[in-house]
């Protein structure tokens, strides 16, 4: 007798836990692969999943086995030309495997790498693992918010569904006490008097007084009774109000030098850096905006396309971009509402006496308002005046200012990790 069961609707992700454990165990490998992928990827698919490959030797599970050597007899199928006593010259590799069929021949040519796919979410997790936004995130209220319904005490109006029974009855009770208090005190006095009268000897009773008292008592009783048990204005309702929920918002300023000295390759590196930063901010903030500012001798706010792909020539005045950033910040992104991040990329060229201006703008107008400002210099050459000025800025704002040099594409991800590596708080 056979039982036939349809199990297709049962859960199919039984192996998820084991898969997670595998990823966890080979975190170091995967991170390395992710880092390499970051460098080799085209920019548009920066955040897709990734094929990870790990050397098979690193994940092998060792067992005792026979090594090559010794005396082995082997039975093989498919004899064509051999007869007993034939001698075959040794062919290096071929005699090595065989026997029970070693691992090497499992997949044809042998596999040196264990290759598998991780999802986009996992990829980003590994990419930004251990990184931290260096400064606390500000949460502020602003226009189009999401709302949250919260209880806000008791009100006299509301729908029957929100009636607060206990509060309503309490109110009714209080009202009844307030409205009948003096009457019941009088009633009490009259009743006492009536009792006194009635307890007197029959001859001494004042029958008229008794009648009067009885009338008054009946009158008072009926008046007390007329106060309603529950009145309209006793009803109390729970009050619910909508409260705007503070959201964290960030704006990222991308500043890039597009003067003649920046070629396409340099800009490409800058873009990778900006993109990494953008992805990272997006994970930390609910809402992120980006402002692109490019500059040569004068600065201009542009859209993404123009920012990365149009070329200009001419000299370089870095302060023009900083001034524009300052203006935009003042006009559209008040520091009280926005988390502001600045990222600047340049090849380090600047107009001779402009660097000190940059220094001044940064210190006076920008640094006090931003969460973090990072500067990358993409150049294989020695540093120039701008770098030195920035170093003095860094000395003043060590927590909020970072600068690194990038020579080629391989440096971007490590530099990025360095900039945002988790710091142990002092």
């Amino acid at each position, binding site marked *: 007798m056979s039982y036939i*069961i*349809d199990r*297709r609707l049962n859960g199919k992700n039984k*192996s998820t*836990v*084991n898969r997670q*454990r595998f990823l966890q165990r080979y975190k170091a490998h995967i991170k390395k692969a992710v880092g390499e992928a970051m460098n080799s990827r085209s920019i548009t698919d920066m955040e897709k999943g990734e094929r990870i490959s790990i050397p098979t030797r690193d994940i092998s599970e060792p067992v005792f086995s026979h090594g090559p050597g010794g005396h082995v*007899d082997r039975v093989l199928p498919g004899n064509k030309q051999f007869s007993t*006593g034939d*001698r075959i010259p040794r062919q290096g590799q071929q005699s090595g495997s065989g026997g029970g069929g070693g691992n090497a021949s499992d997949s044809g040519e042998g596999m040196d790498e264990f290759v598998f796919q991780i999802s986009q979410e996992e990829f980003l997790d590994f990419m930004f693992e251990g990184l931290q936004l260096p400064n606390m995130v500000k949460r502020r209220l602003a226009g189009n918010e999401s709302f949250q319904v919260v209880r806000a005490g008791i009100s006299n109006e509301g729908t029957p569904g929100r009636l607060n029974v206990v509060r309503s009855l309490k109110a009714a009770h209080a009202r009844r006490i307030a409205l009948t208090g003096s009457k019941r005190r009088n009633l009490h006095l009259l009743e006492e008097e009536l009792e006194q009268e009635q307890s007197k000897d029959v001859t001494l009773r004042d029958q008229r007084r008794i009648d009067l008292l009885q009338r008054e008592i009946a009158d008072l009783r009926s008046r007390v009774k007329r106060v309603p048990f529950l009145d309209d204005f006793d009803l109390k309702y729970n009050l619910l109000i909508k409260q705007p929920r503070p959201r964290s918002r960030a704006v990222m300023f991308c500043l890039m030098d597009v003067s003649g000295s920046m070629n396409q390759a340099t800009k490409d590196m800058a873009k990778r850096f900006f993109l990494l930063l953008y992805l990272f901010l997006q994970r930390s903030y609910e809402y992120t905006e980006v402002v692109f500012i490019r500059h040569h001798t004068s600065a201009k706010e542009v859209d993404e396309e123009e920012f990365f792909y149009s070329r200009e020539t001419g000299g370089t005045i870095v302060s023009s971009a900083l001034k524009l950033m300052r203006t935009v910040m003042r006009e559209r992104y008040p520091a009280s509402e926005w988390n502001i991040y600045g990222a600047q990329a340049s090849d380090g060229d600047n107009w001779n006496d402009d660097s000190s201006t940059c220094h001044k703008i940064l210190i006076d107008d920008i640094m006090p308002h931003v969460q973090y400002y990072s500067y990358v210099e993409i150049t294989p050459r020695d540093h120039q005046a701008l770098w030195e000025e920035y170093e003095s800025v860094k000395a003043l704002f060590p927590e909020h200012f970072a600068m690194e040099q990038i020579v080629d594409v391989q440096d971007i991800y490590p530099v990025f990790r360095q900039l945002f590596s988790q710091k142990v708080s002092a």
Partner: protein
Amino acid sequence: MFDHFSSSSDSQAEGPISTSSEWTFELIREYDRAIAEIAEEFGLDTYPNQIEVISSEQMMDAYSSVGMPVGYNHWSFGKQFISVENNYQRGLMGLAYEIVINSNPCIAYLMEENTMTMQALVIAHACYGHNSFFKGNYLFRSWTDASSIIDYLIFAKNYIRECEQRHGQAEVEAVLDSCHALMNYGVDRYKRPYPISAVEEERRQKEREEYRQRQLNDLWRTIPRMGEDDEGNSPHRFPEEPQENILYFIEKNAPLLENWQRELVRIVRKLAQYFYPQRQTQVMNEGWASFWHYTLLTELYKRGRVTEGFMIEFLQSHTNVIYQPAFDSPYYNGINPYTLGFSIFSDLRRICESPTEEDREWFPDIAGTNWTETLQFAMRDFKDESFILQFLSPKVMRDMKLFCISDDDRENEIVVNAIHDEDGYRQLRANLAGQYNLGNREPNIQVFSVANRGDRSLTLHHTQHRRRPLGKDTKEVLRHIHRLWGFDVHLDSLNGDEITASYHCPDVGRDRTEREEESMLIPKPI
């Protein structure tokens, strides 16, 4: 669906069960009934079947937990899953059509993507072939307890999860890693183990804890006992006899293991024991199942219950399954156990039904006997090694064109020492049987001694089989043993009485700085 059901039950014996390749539950039931009927006529004795239809994702899950419906969590299963998933998605491999579990009832998985023909093939192969093998073969009968394995797996899973909560996932994983490395050395080859039972296991766990601790205290006692001073002069060797079950030895005697760690060792050991018969009967098991799916479905065809289209599809996958590439083919990956087993069983039937002169000479006892009885006998009382030695016929050797080469690293050339001819049959057969002897396949490593009066180091001996040395993983495995044992571990590789290689963990042969670097890598003793 209903049409099929009513029409086929009206005309029980006539007409094909189905004509399209779509399967339905009714049809599966119908095929199962028809196949079961024939199987019974042929005398196949089976556990009840539990046929479960699953999706390909579920098949991948089952794949990566060694086919078991429940299993404890471990990264290595995740690795297995990832590689199966990848290969499948990239189209590198198709999933197996079936997985069958040696349990009572016998659980077989059918994949929903398969055609009706494939489902019928799987039912014949797994539910009647493998199933009757599990129930009949002496190794399975005496070494595993089909009725309790699922319960035991659940017990193991829960216990290990509890350990993870109490002692941390990393700790548990470390012990399991080490146990997995020694899994093949966690088997009793000659003693019949007690049947495992989850309830019993839980009940006795406490008891074992106390008993073990008492034993250990005796073993590692450092305070001399009164009146036993003379014993110090002639120390007993411990263990008195070399021990082949390394995991068992560690479970009972490792000085530093916590009780829960010993339980983990035990769980892995029990599972190794459960899989041990499967490793020893691969050729027979697959051969038996293939022989029966072929025989049962051919019989169905003879009785007109399946169409010619069905047979063509069936024969095509049957041929794929028993395809044996030649040794020089790029697809060659050892001898295909399906081919070898199927050929031997089919030839046995031929020998019984229409024996030749050669057969009468080679198999005087079985030539011309009742074939079902002979096959039952061959299936019941043998394992791969003895089965091949007993039943591999000259005809099969000729058909498969087997030949034997002798590869001696002291010689410059490889010698062909037997081929499929009159002079070679016996040697060929003996050598092929030897190839399936687990004792030859895996290095023979045993616990030799423990320095219970000295540094508590553990010494293992590897007895070489025809001078074959140990492979490159040896050092790694030694580290795992070291982790479990907690003190120095030595492994001597012996050719006769001569030690030809020694392995140590921690390593002693090198200078100090190197050793210190090394010790960073060695898993910390627990």
